[in-house]
């Protein structure tokens, strides 16, 4: 008997080792899966940050400009009409001629003016408007360089210098600037405040961010109340029958429908039937509300379901009506879960492009939208448009915009986590 007992212990001991090994392996698989995911994220981030960090800094060239009234064609700096008509690009050209010597050949003249972005003229106009005393005076300014110069300047020293849009002459000019320290990278605030532009050095995401915010405001305003109302009715009031089953199946289906289909719906119903304006945030918001509604309903129902029945029963027991139970007890307790669901839904809406294609929000829009009916575009669409642009300097703008989008998404998801941690009650 003692022999048999010992042998059982031995068997267990032998199998224990095997079982420990199996468990270690099992954990290893888990770790491998997680590290694979992390590696993929890391690769994505390094690629995007590697390409996009340049978008936050822009090349500027230092020049001494003279606001010559004759060159500008402005007699009096207090006359706004004259200020608007002034030839500011001629002032920039004159400053370049002074710095590098006046070119004779036409082609050379064109190349020389191409050192500075055409935004410089507008900057001079703004400065003169703000300070009329500058007329006839001179000042030393850092002016925005053209995107070809910018792309070359940033590619310097990295092995593959981007010189294919730089002529010998241009290279000689920028070399002389470089020697004197008159060309430098500076923080690119315009990237965050300006709208889209076809000149990469002037392009910014300000318009797209504003458009995204306006669109999401409409989306939240529509999908949250409607989603919560639908969830409350389905969970608290609706009878359990074939109809509610049918509705539930449909909601789950809608959550999985490709979003481009909602875009087609938007085109057919909201534009063609209700005559809503194309490319407007209000339209985009309505379409995205449809996209996010199923997600909001499903997560709100889950949040309501997780409120223990004892709370309802207690409230009913002391004489509360069904509505009082819902508004006074169930809803406050389910709110953190609902908000989390709504934020996740908004994060999804922020990243959508496909449905917007159909309703004209994939468009070149320079002016920053000021209202819900102004033409607007959104962040992911801006990324898509820049990724498709031929100019080399848009590559870093694309990655820069992706970084901003990722920052927004991280912020929203972090907010969802914080809300859950702070407000959620465990039963």
């Amino acid at each position: 008997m003692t022999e048999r007992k010992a042998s059982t212990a031995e068997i267990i001991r032998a199998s224990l080792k095997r079982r420990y090994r199996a468990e270690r392996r099992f954990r290893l698989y888990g770790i491998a899966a997680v590290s694979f995911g992390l590696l993929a994220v890391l690769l994505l981030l390094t690629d995007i940050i590697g390409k996009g960090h340049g978008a936050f800094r822009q090349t500027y060239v230092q020049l001494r400009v003279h606001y010559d009234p004759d060159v500008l064609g402005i007699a009096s700096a207090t006359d706004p009409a004259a200020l608007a008509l002034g030839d500011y690009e001629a002032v920039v050209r004159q400053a370049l001629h002074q710095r590098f010597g006046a070119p004779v050949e036409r082609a050379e003249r064109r190349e020389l003016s191409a050192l500075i972005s055409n935004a410089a003229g507008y900057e001079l106009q703004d400065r003169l408007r703000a300070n009329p005393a500058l007329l006839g005076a001179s000042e030393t300014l850092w002016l925005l360089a053209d995107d070809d110069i910018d792309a070359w300047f940033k590619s310097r020293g990295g092995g593959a210098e981007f010189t294919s849009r730089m002529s010998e002459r241009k290279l000689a000019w920028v070399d002389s600037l470089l020697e004197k320290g008159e060309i430098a990278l500076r923080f690119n605030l315009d990237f965050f405040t300006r709208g889209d532009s076809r000149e990469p050095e002037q392009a910014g995401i300000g318009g797209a961010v504003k458009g995204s915010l306006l669109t999401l405001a409409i989306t939240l305003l529509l999908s949250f109340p409607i989603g919560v109302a639908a969830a409350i009715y389905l969970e608290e009031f609706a009878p359990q029958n074939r109809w509610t089953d049918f509705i539930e199946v449909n909601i789950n289906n809608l959550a999985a429908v490709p979003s481009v289909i909602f875009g087609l719906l938007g085109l057919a119903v909201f534009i063609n039937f209700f005559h809503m304006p194309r490319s407007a945030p209000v339209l985009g918001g309505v379409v995205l509300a449809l996209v996010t509604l199923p997600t909001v309903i499903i997560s709100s129902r889950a949040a309501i379901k997780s409120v223990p029945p004892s709370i309802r029963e207690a409230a009913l027991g002391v004489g509360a009506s069904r509505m009082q139970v819902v508004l006074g007890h169930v809803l406050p307790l389910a709110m953190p879960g609902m908000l989390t669901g709504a934020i996740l839904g908004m994060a999804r809406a922020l990243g959508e492009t496909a449905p917007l294609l159909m309703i004209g929000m994939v468009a070149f829009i320079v002016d920053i939208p000021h209202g819900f009916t102004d033409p607007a575009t959104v962040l992911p669409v801006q990324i898509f448009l820049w990724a498709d642009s031929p100019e080399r300097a848009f590559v870093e703008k694309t990655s820069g915009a992706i970084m901003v989008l990722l920052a927004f998404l991280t912020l929203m998801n972090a907010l969802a986590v914080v809300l859950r941690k702070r407000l959620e009650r465990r039963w």
Partner: protein
Amino acid sequence: MKATLRSSICGLGVGAALALVGTGAFAQSRDTISMVGSSTVYPFATVVAERFGKANNGATPKVESTGTGGGMKLFCGGVGTGHPDIANASRQIKKAEFDACQANGVKDIIEIQIGFDGIVLAKSIKGAPLQLTTKDIYLALAKGIPAKYGPKLVPNPNKTWKDVNPSLPDTKIEVLGPPPTSGTRDAFVELAMESGCNSFEWIKDLKKVNEVEYANICHTLREDGAFVEAGENDNLIVQKLAANPNALGVFGFSYLEQNSDKVQGAAINGVAPTFDNIANKSYPVSRPLFIYVKKAHIGVVPGIEGYLAEFTSEKAWGEDGYLAEKGLIPMPAPLRATMAAKAANKVTMGGSAGLK
């Protein structure tokens, strides 16, 4: 707590209701020009729009990139500020589109040619430049090619460029190009493939007898992996070419110009794809680009005339203009003058005669 929550929910509800009611009552006027159409014309139309907006301190026109066909559908949808004012096109308007326009009340259309676009066959800069003829391109990429003897078709047996033409390198045929929805693809097929196709007498003769069969022979690309549909994004094709020195790619000239440190264009029929060669029409694969303007909207939507004047000015589309800087190949001066006059005098299209 209870009360505030309830009122906040009510507030949200009211807000949602207001938003819904608001959507029903949109003013149908518009003070910005609305453009739709070709993704090839998009880079040029947007530059003009931006400059026009800045110069006038007014609203910058809105440009949507929908593709030529999609743009025409919207453009021909009707007259009124709910419909776009201008359609950008990388080919001439089709007869069916013109008829659709007429049927929907878009009677008066101004057609303005704005310049040319070259389509290039490019490969990585690593490796020797390629010299192709349109016949080589046809024999390498057509689904069926003429058999050695007699007028009949066999499935394309060519595996390497050397199979096509002994003077070409012994590398696998692998060409990345846009999908059939793209105007670039249409133009490539019609210009490069068809020209190669016509080097066979019996196929050329077929055009007069059986045009459907002719188009079938000349326009159908291989589906066995030698021609790869790489999507509408030309930058993606450039990246793939840089990674694979043996592959060739089909895309617009401006992408070749912006990436000349990575890719080089193949000479076709002995002519290299350069700015000058496309401008003087010696490069065989180039196509005209157009904009179509709804005459009924001029004067209704502010700024259309100003936009056209900006587009047709020498500082925009001239030989040294800013559009040339962006890769648009300018038209010869007399043609520019004709088109500018057409725009200024608002000359509309006479009818559908001559359209495809």
